């Protein structure tokens, strides 16, 4: 998935969000660190570009809400959470790059609830790669990508990585030949170095 494909997906998601919420006044976007944050800002610009109002954007670090603090090795350095608006009674669209097991979203839901009682929470993701371990689904999906659990989906964004792309990587030593990129809806397959 290259830069143009990412932009097309975001454009469609922005339209869907605007269509689903006739009244955008009670809506806010919350990006999940790290790559959900630039995606939330891009969606905000796109929705504003549709002639709609500019939505407030917050950022959420879910590190403190993870269920694997002591079982996974070094965790990411904790970054600040910044939700500069009251979420009580508001509709929130959570934004993240990849939806996989659903555990990140579970943590994000818990984190968001500590800030108040939103009217509803919806989920927008750039890539849904399947393999859910919790009863969680996305309301807005940029692209569905069938994957195997041995593979890794890497989303790179201009704001963080200097380049827009989505890569599907097969695990080293898994002995699998990556399926053709065409079969993955345009997501480029590469061997993991």
């Amino acid at each position, binding site marked *: 998935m290259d830069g143009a494909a990412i932009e097309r997906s975001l454009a469609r998601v922005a339209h869907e969000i605007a269509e689903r919420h006739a009244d955008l006044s009670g809506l806010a976007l919350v990006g999940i660190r790290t790559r959900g944050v630039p995606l939330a800002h891009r969606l905000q610009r796109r929705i504003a570009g549709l002639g709609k109002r500019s939505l407030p954007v917050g950022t959420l670090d879910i590190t403190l809400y993870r269920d694997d603090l002591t079982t996974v090795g070094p965790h990411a350095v904790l970054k600040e959470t910044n939700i500069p608006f009251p979420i009580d009674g508001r509709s929130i669209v959570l934004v993240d790059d990849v939806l996989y097991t659903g555990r990140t979203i579970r943590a994000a839901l818990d984190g968001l609830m500590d*800030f108040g009682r939103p009217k509803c929470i919806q989920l927008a993701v750039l890539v849904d790669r399947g393999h859910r371990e919790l009863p969680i689904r996305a309301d807005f999906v940029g692209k569905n990508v069938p994957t195997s659990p041995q593979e890794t989906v890497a989303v790179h964004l201009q704001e963080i990585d200097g380049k827009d792309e989505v890569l599907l990587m097969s695990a080293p030593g898994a002995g699998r030949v990556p399926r053709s990129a065409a079969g993955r809806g345009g997501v480029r397959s590469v061997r993991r170095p």
Partner: protein
Amino acid sequence: MNETVIDRNAAPGRRPARPGRTEAPPVSRERVAASTAAAPAPSPRDVPAGPLAAFPRRHLLGIQGLIRGEIDLILDTARAFAEVSRRSIKKVPTLRGKTIVNLFMEPSTRTRSSFEIAEKRLSADTLNFSLSGSSVSKGETLVDTARNLEAMAPDMIVIRHRAAGASHLLARHCRSNIINAGDGSHEHPTQALLDAYTIREKKGRLDGLRVAIVGDLMHSRVLRSNLFLLRTMGADIQVCGPPTLVPIGLERLGAVVHTRIESALEGADVIMMLRIQRERQQGGAFPSAREYFNLFGLTRERVRLARKDAIIMHPGPMNRGVEIDSAVADGPESVILEQVSNGVSVRMAVLYLLAGGTLGDLAA
């Protein structure tokens, strides 16, 4: 990489480096000696820059031996935790199900309540244990007390003790993570960290700042931890106190020693006052509190010797009219109460980092 969860750092090239993990000494070889005056401080220049991705230690026994990246990691993490204390629901579930024992064998209000609030905001279960009302007053040794506590399987022990090296002793005998909350005249690492955090929030950096530390240099664990930290972070340290309260060899820890407060304060970015610790002094270090105030007390006039934008700090509890004038303590340059607020964030960061580092770092 764990395949069952989304590892946000799993992409190649995005994996955080873990340089500190290999450099950290095994716990069994942690320095136990309390005589810090003779120990050479690490050169601030030969350590990698930038924060590490994870804290490579099981215990926080002192600042001595910490490298710049470790200190940066704690301060950066504390910054993220400050946001939790600004919420209306000041609680995150991070340490849910963890038990933390606060073993305070010396009087303490600030440090103890600060740790307790930090623990509660991280959802840990806390057990407070103090000198009075415990079997220590019945003659039990520290190691026996700790072993008995440990039989109840706590995850961390925060210890304050009048003997230097008490936390090191516990670290050798216990499986829990140990945090030193002050051991005698040796170290008080979380105080130095919250001081550094306060300075960094106010000044934006530590490197190259001129820090004047005035007071009872002999008995101050706050001074020793601050010397190690400020030197590692590249600050220029000036200290001053009555000659009877200046330990021999203090220069070797990287400080310039003054006998007149005026010369120590000149051009300072940060003024750190230390408490006169009457409970540790044998008496006779100086004739009277009034004389001490006249020679070493921080007054409005003396503050003018420092830079215009200098900040004034005190680890508390203050002796007003002995080491600091009330007009200065409550003045616009004073960040003394901010230090207390920042203490909670810094302690949350320390608890969090030690809890996260448990599995991979169990010393063989």
